[in-house]
């Protein structure tokens, strides 16, 4: 009984989907536009540490610059491919340690500085976590582009799965969601291993105010 029901449902969904396909022609990644490329090439200049290589897009950036396609059914296969490329780039901590010092982690989470043309190569780069996430509930100035992380460990537990997932997500969020708004902190060396371990502690040390 239940199974037939499900089958019917699936059939119906399939029908709707097929109908949708008929109406809208298959989407493809937007065409290479020489005029647009020329505009981008001619509109910027290198300044300090912000070189022109920063507008040479990698596959992930190119894909995600076309949200109509990247969010579509037709983009599904490419989405998975992008996620795999990013997943494969993640390295687990060299010393096997996942949890650092939450106090340092809070500092990394607070700072949104670094990596701009007004910074130097020595400017420590912040994680900018509070820009988008609620973390320690005592900080009232937090953004909401990303989900709240208050009570992160308390809610999810401190299992190996949670720890590894969190590590991966901080390293390269695009491994799970091809066009996540979150920067790939390890991929572009925005945060070093120690800083990521410290941010991990902020989220997953039972002593961190996040879990109090």
């Amino acid at each position: 009984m239940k199974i037939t029901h499900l089958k019917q449902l699936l059939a119906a969904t399939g029908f709707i989907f097929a109908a949708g396909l008929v109406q809208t022609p298959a989407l493809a990644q937007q065409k290479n536009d020489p005029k647009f490329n020329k505009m981008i090439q001619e509109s910027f200049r290198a300044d300090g540490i912000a070189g022109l290589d920063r507008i040479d897009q990698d596959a992930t950036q190119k894909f995600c610059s076309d949200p109509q396609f990247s969010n579509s059914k037709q983009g599904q296969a490419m989405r998975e491919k992008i996620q795999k490329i990013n997943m494969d780039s993640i390295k687990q901590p060299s010393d096997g340690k996942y949890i650092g010092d939450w106090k340092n982690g809070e500092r990394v989470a607070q700072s949104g500085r670094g990596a701009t043309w007004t910074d130097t190569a020595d400017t420590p780069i912040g994680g900018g976590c509070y820009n988008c996430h609620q973390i320690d509930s005592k900080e009232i100035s937090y953004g909401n582009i990303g989900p709240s992380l208050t009570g992160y460990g308390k809610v999810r537990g401190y299992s190996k799965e949670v720890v590894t997932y969190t590590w991966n997500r901080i390293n390269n969020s695009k491994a799970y969601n091809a066009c996540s708004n979150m920067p790939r902190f390890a991929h572009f060396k925005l945060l070093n291993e120690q800083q990521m371990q410290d941010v991990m502690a902020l989220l997953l040390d039972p002593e961190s105010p996040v879990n109090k």
Partner: protein
Amino acid sequence: MQRKLTLGLATGLVAALLTMTSSVSAQKSATDDIAKYREMIADGNPSELYEAAGEELWKKPAGPKNATLEQCNLGLGPGVVKGAAAQLPRYFKDTNKVQDLESRLMTCMQVLQGRDPQEMIDAPFQKGPKKDMEAIVAYVVTLSKGDKIKVSTAHPKEKEMYDLGKRAFFFQGGPMDFSCASCHAENGKRIRLQDLPNITEQKGAALGWGYWPAYRVSSGQFWTMQQRLNDCFRQQRFPFPIYSSDVTIALSMYMAKTANGGTVETPGLKR
């Protein structure tokens, strides 16, 4: 025993719910308080200081030709300043280009006063010739305050600029993978406590485009739209957008056209 446990659980749940609502209401009151703060500083916008200086510069002979800018054509005819900023960017036949306010003012300075636009392009913000530009912009945009944003894409070059701008809005790059859309393509989003207008919709675009140029409290400076866009790209960790380059004009065209029908509230007063 069993009952106690359930009760305990229930209390725990209620407590958890209470904590949740209290933190949500704390946030709501924080944003309300920010709104109150903004209201308190709204009276006495230091942009007025720049506007006064700009009016003087507009009427003062300058440059190799020792001429004023009073005959500058901002799109509504030579010398018409009132309402002109509300209809920019637009296509100009004499330059065969779509121009925003600042690139158009550079044309006027070149044609009428004989000034070299490259000097303006190369100058850092808030210094030298840019300082003059900023004051003049403050003067010009004040004369469109209260007007409706009315930007046309009827000319093919305007339409082309709009399309390029729309694409640029979603163009990701830099070590943080950011595009304008990373922060400005959804409703109800904030960075820290600052609301982020959704510029892909009319309402949000009007909130963004309609309030810049503005006096920026955090830097104590009057910022033109070019400087605002420049700082967006800086925060996006992009390379430096060249002053009045096509990408800046294209993005302005996209924002302004999307904002059509909204009200010009410039000069604004921003964080």
